[in-house]
C-alpha cells in the first residue's frame, strides 16, 4: 500500500546549463511525484530531459555549473537547497541510482566486491569483513550464482546481464527508499532485459522501495511502471496510470509513440507511423508548444501559447499539456486507434491541416 504522502515530490524543477552557444534549457519546469512501493516510469526521447532531472535529484548536476530552481522534496527536505555533505549522506543510502551501461559505469580496475564494499562503508560503520559479507549477500539476492567467488572478479569478467545485476546489488546494498534506474536495460539483450526487470520488481516487493525507471522504451514501462510521465523537450506533456496511458492517451506525442510500436495484434498491412522530424534544440526552443513543429494536428496559435499540464476531466491522476480541446483529442485518438493515419484522422475530425 502506498502512503498518501509522496516519498519524492518534484515541483516546477528547472535546470539550465549556461554554455558557449547559449543556455541549454534541459529541464523546463516539471512536476511529478513518486510514492513508496510504487514505480514511476519517465518516458521520452534523447534530449527530453529525463536523465538530467533524475541526476539533479541526487545533486549530480551541480558540478557541471547547472542553474537549478524549483524544489525536490524528499522526506520533507528540499534536495535542491541541501548542502553537499547532507546530500552525500543521502546518495547511495536513501536514494540510489543505477545507470545505463554497467561496463562503463563500474570502475574497470577495482574488483566488483570492492566497489560494493565501498558503497557499504560510505554509509555504515562496519568492518571490511562485515561489508564483504553484505556484498556477497546482495550478489546472491540479485541472482548471481556462486557469489562468494565472483565477488573478487573484475567487471569485465561478468556478462552484460550479470554486470547490471551487480550494479543493482551495489545500489541496493544500503536498502534505499528510492531507486532511480536510468535506462537499466537498454544495453542488454532482450531476454536479459526481461530478467532484469523481473528482478527489479521482485526486489521492490521484498524491500518496499519506490522506483523511478527512465527509458525511451514503452515496452519496459508497460511491464514495470504503475504511473508514467511522458517528457518532451524538457517538459512533461502527459502523466497517467499505465493502463490509462496505453488505452486512452491524450497527447499527440504519446499517440505518436504508441503508433510507432509494432503490435502483434495489428493487421500486417497497417503501416507504422513514425513521428516526423527530430527533437528540438534545447537552446533555441520552438515558441509556444514545444511539440507544435512536429504535431500533425497543430493549429496556428499553438505557436504562441504555452500549454500547461492540466487534469483530464473525469480521470484522477491523468494530466495532459495540450492546447487541443478534449473531445477533439478523443475523436482523433479513436480514429488512430482504429488504424487510421494522422491525415485521415485530421480529415475525419474536420481540423485544418497543421502547418508542417
Amino acid at each position, binding site marked *: 500500500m502506498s502512503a498518501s504522502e509522496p516519498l519524492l515530490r518534484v515541483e516546477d524543477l528547472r535546470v539550465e546549463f549556461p554554455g558557449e552557444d547559449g543556455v541549454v534549457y534541459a529541464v523546463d519546469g516539471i512536476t511529478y511525484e513518486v510514492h513508496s512501493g510504487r514505480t514511476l516510469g519517465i518516458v521520452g526521447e534523447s534530449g527530453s530531459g529525463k536523465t538530467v532531472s533524475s541526476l539533479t535529484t*541526487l545533486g*549530480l548536476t551541480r558540478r557541471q555549473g547547472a542553474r537549478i530552481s524549483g524544489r525536490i522534496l524528499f522526506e520533507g527536505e528540499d534536495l535542491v537547497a541541501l548542502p553537499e555533505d547532507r546530500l*552525500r*549522506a*543521502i*546518495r*547511495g*543510502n536513501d536514494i*540510489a*541510482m543505477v*545507470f545505463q*551501461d554497467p561496463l*562503463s*559505469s*563500474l*570502475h*574497470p*580496475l*577495482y574488483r566488483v566486491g570492492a566497489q560494493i564494499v*565501498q*558503497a557499504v562503508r*560510505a*554509509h555504515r560503520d562496519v568492518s571490511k569483513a562485515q561489508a564483504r559479507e553484505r556484498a556477497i549477500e546482495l550478489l546472491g539476492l540479485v541472482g548471481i550464482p556462486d557469489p562468494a567467488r565472483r565477488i573478487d572478479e*573484475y567487471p*569485465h569478467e561478468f556478462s552484460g546481464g550479470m554486470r547490471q545485476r551487480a*550494479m543493482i546489488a*551495489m545500489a541496493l546494498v544500503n536498502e534505499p527508499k528510492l531507486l532511480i534506474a536510468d535506462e537499466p536495460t537498454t544495453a542488454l539483450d532482450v531476454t536479459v532485459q526481461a530478467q532484469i526487470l523481473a528482478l527489479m520488481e521482485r526486489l521492490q516487493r521484498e524491500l518496499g522501495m519506490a522506483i523511478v525507471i527512465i527509458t525511451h522504451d514503452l515496452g519496459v514501462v508497460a511491464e514495470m511502471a504503475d504511473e508514467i510521465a511522458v517528457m518532451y523537450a524538457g517538459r512533461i506533456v502527459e502523466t497517467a496510470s499505465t493502463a490509462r496511458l496505453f488505452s486512452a492517451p491524450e497527447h499527440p506525442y504519446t499517440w505518436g509513440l504508441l503508433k510507432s510500436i509494432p503490435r502483434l495484434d495489428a493487421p500486417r498491412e497497417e503501416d507504422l507511423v513514425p513521428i516526423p522530424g527530430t527533437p528540438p534544440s534545447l537552446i533555441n526552443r520552438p515558441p509556444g508548444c514545444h511539440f507544435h513543429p512536429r504535431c500533425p494536428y497543430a493549429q496556428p496559435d499553438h505557436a504562441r501559447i504555452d500549454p500547461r499540464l492540466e487534469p483530464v476531466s473525469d480521470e484522477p491522476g491523468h494530466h495532459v499539456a495540450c492546447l487541443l480541446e478534449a473531445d477533439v483529442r478523443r475523436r482523433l485518438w479513436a480514429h488512430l486507434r482504429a488504424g487510421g493515419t494522422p491525415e485521415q484522422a485530421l480529415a475525419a475530425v474536420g481540423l485544418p491541416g497543421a502547418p508542417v
Partner: protein
Amino acid sequence: MIRYIIRRLLWGVLLLIVVAALMFVLFRILPTGNPALLRAGRDPQPKLVKEIEVVLGLNKSLPTQFWDYLKEVFLHFKFGYSYYNQEEVRSLIAERLPATLSLTIGAALLWIVGGLGVGVISALRRHSLLDRFAMGTALVLISAPEFWLGLVFLYLFASDIGIVKILPGAGSYAGLTSDPWKWFTSLIMPWIVLASGSAAVFARLMRSSLGEAMKEDYIRTARAKGLPERHVARQGVRAAINPIVTLFGLEVGALLGGAILVEYVFNIPGIGELNYKAIQSSDFPVTQGTVLLASMFIILANIVVDVAYAYLDPRVRYS
C-alpha cells in the same frame, strides 16, 4: 606469466646482440673512430698505426672481432679492456654504477612524487590560480636545458662558488657507504635538476589524464554512491595512472644508462660521464660496454613496464 617473462628476456638478449653488432659497425665507419690513429700520436706514421692496430686486435676482420667479443661476453662475462688504461670494462662500469643508480633513483622518486602530486592537484583544481601557476612553472622547467639549470643551481647554492653557500659544490659526491651525509647533500641539487624536467612533464600528463578520467561514467557512479570527494578522486587517479606508469618506467630505464649532462656538470662519477669520455677518446670497449648496459636497462624497463601494466589493468591480462 613466467613464460611470458622468460620469452621477453630471451628476445632481449637477442636484441642486445644486435645492438652490439650495430656498435661494431658504427665504430668502424665513423671517421674519427680509429683508436690506433689516436694512439699513434699527432704525426702518425702509417707503419706505427698498423702495429698498434695489430696490438689492439683491430686488424682482424670485423666478423672475427665480433665473434671474439661475443665469446668473451657469453663464456666469461668479460667485456674487454679499456684501450687507455687496460682496466677491465666491467669493473669500470661496476665502479660507477652505484653513483648512477643513486642519482637516477633519487631523481625518479622526486619526480614521481612531485610531478604526480602537482598534476593531481592541478587536475582537481582546474583553471584555478594554483593550476595556472603550476602549469606555467612546468613549462619553464621542461624548456630549461639541464646543463644550464645545473650551472644556475651551482652559482646560486654551491658552498664553493655559490651566492648562498648551503649545498656542496660540484665534485663533492661521496659513496653512500663511505659518507652517507655527504652522499645525500651532494645529490640534492643533481636530483632536483634531473627531476625537474621530468616532473614537469609528468605533472602535465597527470593533469590531462586525470582530467579525462574524472569525466568517465564510473566517477559519476562513485559520486552517486555517496562517496566522499577524496575517495572519488582516488578512483580517478587509479585509472589515470596507467599510461603514466608506462612512461615512468621507460624514462627510468633510459636514465639508468647514465644522465650525461647532470653527471658532467656536477662531476658525479657515473655511467653517463664514463660513456661520454669513452666516446670522445674512441675507447670502443668501454663505449660498447656502456651502450650495452644502457640497452639492457631499457629492455628490462620495457619488460617491467609491460608486466606492471598487466598487473595494474586486469583487462589486459587475458588478451
